[in-house]
């Protein structure tokens, strides 16, 4: 970006560059060459399109919820309508945007490039995973169009299996299907990182982006099947009356919650770990300096993946779980925050004595760090037993997980989009608009969710659309924030798509940054590397810019 000082890209249509003519984008123009591709880069683009569509559908449901909560009686939607709106918002955002967002787009595109491979270990499985995702998506659209489901994204029994009257089994089938898409992606990444690293690319030379995706893949592969069998048993109980969790038969509704949260808490680490990988790359590139404490940051990804499996009980402190088990889960939930603390402090230490540039992706990275810290700490507060008794299932919890998922993962997703867009498309975008959208997203987000911390502690229950009139001011603030956030999210797609035609050519290394993906032309050719590179130095080996930098 250093050579293009102008905020706006060169005006008028920019003709196709030499790299673009031979790049993966031009390797076949027919729809068939896109829909039957096994090139990991094209599959990443297919995923990017699909998850963006679901991001806006889920966002629309969120807009409905926020508008309905403008008034204490909830005049926009009926009770039933509100229940279905937050359920479809949850189902689509969790399984069709947050979980696949960074791994299936940036993971698919960049992991082979970063480790010096021509493609993932199983290219055909990669395409199959996209088709399974689309199939799951279509079933969800069917559920949405024909009336939705009113159980919440958690599908708790006995409500989901015996009392709910929406399309519970179809929604469970959609999630069951899309689960296998994540399993295939996780499996592909694990085998690729183990078997396809370039010569010299030892585990100590892997970019932290790859480390975090490796840890995410372990969680994807080990947790998702438990969700599949739990939803299958719930659907069997609803469809055929095969009572597994049925309290009338002496079944334990808490058993469903144990199985569900055994998946669903690791699932939140599936959502945040790739974002942490992105931020490690962005912070290193922003500071033009190696990440502080490489091994600590790398192993903290693995630690989060492993300890993440031991903490699910903190969702059930007030659910009737034994107080001894709750104490154990509370302690382990505090332990799982330690690796995240290491990452945050190490990122901050990376900025020390760096050469910091405030390009749009690096603004997103810093807003990630700020918002993730608030989300993480309120998570620690929720892990404290007595506090959780008060704020469980209130909007305090809503604010907590939105600070991590929207403040964290979505900011990192947009940061990654702005950082690797020149590599994906070979074009640069307007840096002024990039910075504006980062700032608007940060402001809109805080205005939307900080009031919900206050509402939560005041006792505003979650999933309520009728509330005490005294809370109305905070709800109006939150809805105002949501409308600003909604507009801010549309901005990037405007100027990024504009850059496809009018953006100036980006060249192989616009930032400039280290990493094998920056050594190939932008957009990269179909076979990635003419010759598989031999890696000789540690990652993030930024050149010393000034004499004496290294003392």
């Amino acid at each position, binding site marked *: 970006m250093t050579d293009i000082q102008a905020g706006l890209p060169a005006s008028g249509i920019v003709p196709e560059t030499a790299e673009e003519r031979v790049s993966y984008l031009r390797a076949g123009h027919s729809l068939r060459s896109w829909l039957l591709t096994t090139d990991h880069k094209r599959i990443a683009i297919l995923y990017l399109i699909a998850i963006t569509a679901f991001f806006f559908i889920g966002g629309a449901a969120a807009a409905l919820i926020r508008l309905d909560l403008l008034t204490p009686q909830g005049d926009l939607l009926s009770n039933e309508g509100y229940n279905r709106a937050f359920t479809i918002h949850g189902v689509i955002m969790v399984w069709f945007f947050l979980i696949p967002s960074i791994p299936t787009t940036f993971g698919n595109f960049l992991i082979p490039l970063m480790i010096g491979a021509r493609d993932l270990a199983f290219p055909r499985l990669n395409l199959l995973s996209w088709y399974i995702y689309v199939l799951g998506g279509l079933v969800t659209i069917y559920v949405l169009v024909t009336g939705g489901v009113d159980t919440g994204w958690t599908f708790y029994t006995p*409500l989901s299996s015996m*009392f709910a009257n929406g399309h519970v089994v179809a929604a469970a089938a959609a999630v069951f299907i899309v689960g296998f898409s994540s399993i295939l992606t996780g499996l592909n990444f694990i085998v690729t990182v183990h078997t396809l690293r370039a010569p010299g690319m030892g585990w100590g030379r892997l970019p932290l982006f790859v480390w975090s995706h490796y840890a995410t893949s372990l969680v994807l592969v080990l947790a998702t099947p438990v969700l599949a069998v739990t939803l299958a048993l719930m659907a069997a109980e609803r469809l055929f009356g095969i009572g597994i969790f049925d309290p009338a038969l002496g079944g334990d509704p808490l058993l469903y919650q144990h199985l569900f949260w055994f998946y669903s808490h690791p699932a939140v680490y599936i959502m945040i770990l790739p974002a942490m990988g992105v931020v490690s790359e962005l912070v290193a590139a922003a500071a033009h300096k190696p990440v502080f404490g490489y091994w600590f940051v790398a192993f903290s990804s693995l630690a989060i993946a492993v300890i993440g499996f031991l903490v699910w009980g903190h969702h059930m402190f007030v659910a009737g779980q034994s107080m001894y088990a709750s104490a154990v889960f509370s302690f382990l939930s505090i332990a799982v925050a330690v690796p995240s603390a290491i990452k945050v402090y190490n990122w901050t230490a990376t*900025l020390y004595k760096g050469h910091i540039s405030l390009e749009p992706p690096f603004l997103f990275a810093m807003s990630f760090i700020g918002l993730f810290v608030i989300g993480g700490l309120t998570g620690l507060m929720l892990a404290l037993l007595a506090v959780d008794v008060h704020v*469980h299932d209130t909007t305090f919890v809503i604010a907590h997980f939105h600070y991590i998922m929207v403040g964290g993962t979505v900011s990192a997703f947009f940061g990654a989009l702005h950082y690797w867009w020149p590599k994906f498309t070979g074009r640069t975008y307007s840096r002024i608009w990039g910075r504006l959208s980062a700032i608007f997203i940060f402001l809109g987000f805080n205005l939307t969710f900080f009031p919900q911390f206050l509402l939560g502690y005041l006792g505003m229950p979650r999933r309520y659309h*009728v509330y005490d009139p005294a809370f109305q001011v905070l709800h109006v603030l939150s809805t105002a924030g949501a409308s600003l956030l909604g507009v801010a999210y549309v901005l990037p797609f405007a100027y990024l798509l504009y850059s496809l035609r009018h953006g100036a050519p980006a060249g192989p290394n616009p930032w400039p940054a280290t990493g094998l993906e920056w050594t190939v032309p932008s957009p990269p050719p179909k076979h990635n590397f003419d010759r598989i590179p031999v890696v000789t130095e540690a990652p993030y080996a930024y050149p010393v810019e000034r004499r004496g930098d290294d003392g």
Partner: protein
Amino acid sequence: MNGFIPLWPDAASAHAGQVDQLVIAFTVLMVALTAPVFVLIVVFAVRYRRGKAANRTHRVNRSVWLETSWAAIPFLLTLFFFVWAAWLYFDLHRPPADAMEIDVVAKRWMWKFQHPEGQREIDDLHVPAGRPVKLTMTSEDVIHSLFVPALRVKQDVLPGRYTTLWFDADRPGSYPLECTQFCGTDHSLMHGRLVVMAGQDYARWLAGTQGGDTLAAEGRALFRSLGCSGCHGPGATVHAPKLEGLYGRPVPLQDGSTVTADEQYIRDSILEPNSRIAAGYPPIMPTFRNLVDEGEVQQLVAYIKSLATQPAEPTP
């Protein structure tokens, strides 16, 4: 909870005050641990801006001591709060013996309260101030959750099982009471008021409401009308466990283990007699699952508990 924008909920019990102290103290620790991150990011972004001259010598890229310390110190500090919070949590799970017992039945989209003196209330609950009150709760359909923000207490209400919640409200007033576990269409409407009244006001309220039979009395009537007295009554000839003095006593079971006869055991024995059969008795008791609803089971349990004080006659 007054003023244009309410910022802090009312606190109507000692426990609520303690939870507030815990939250404020923990927030102070969190600000102390994270202020450096926010400040340093801005400071570094300004001082070490790319292209700006600055003293960038002695760049260190790893320091095992520094990294271990900023991992361990926050963890140890938070552990102190873990112990404090766990202490409050355990305190919540140990109701005092002299607490006033109120039975609660949660049903899709309403709360039914039954006072020991016989009063019945829907959605609203009147309790005396300054006296511990223990709620024994169950649900007739899905999982609900009783939440009183002013007391900082919440407990899920499960179908097929008793869960308990106790509090000692000391400030009279009317506080919101809500259901916080999504339970279907009108989940948002399933709320009411917890009315905490000073001693004499509560007595006047008790007298004022129609004083039907006490809970135990209604239980005795049911005990007779359902035919329980045929086997468990004093003059019964059938070989069935005597219920006098049963409540709170350990009961040896057929599989060799023993269990204390609490509300849960009595309820299970009424609704699923074969689940835990007392030792030395044939499993001949029919199930009453479809004959009585949860409210009536609580009346029977109240009656059997009232028998606890009478001496147990020798079984025939």
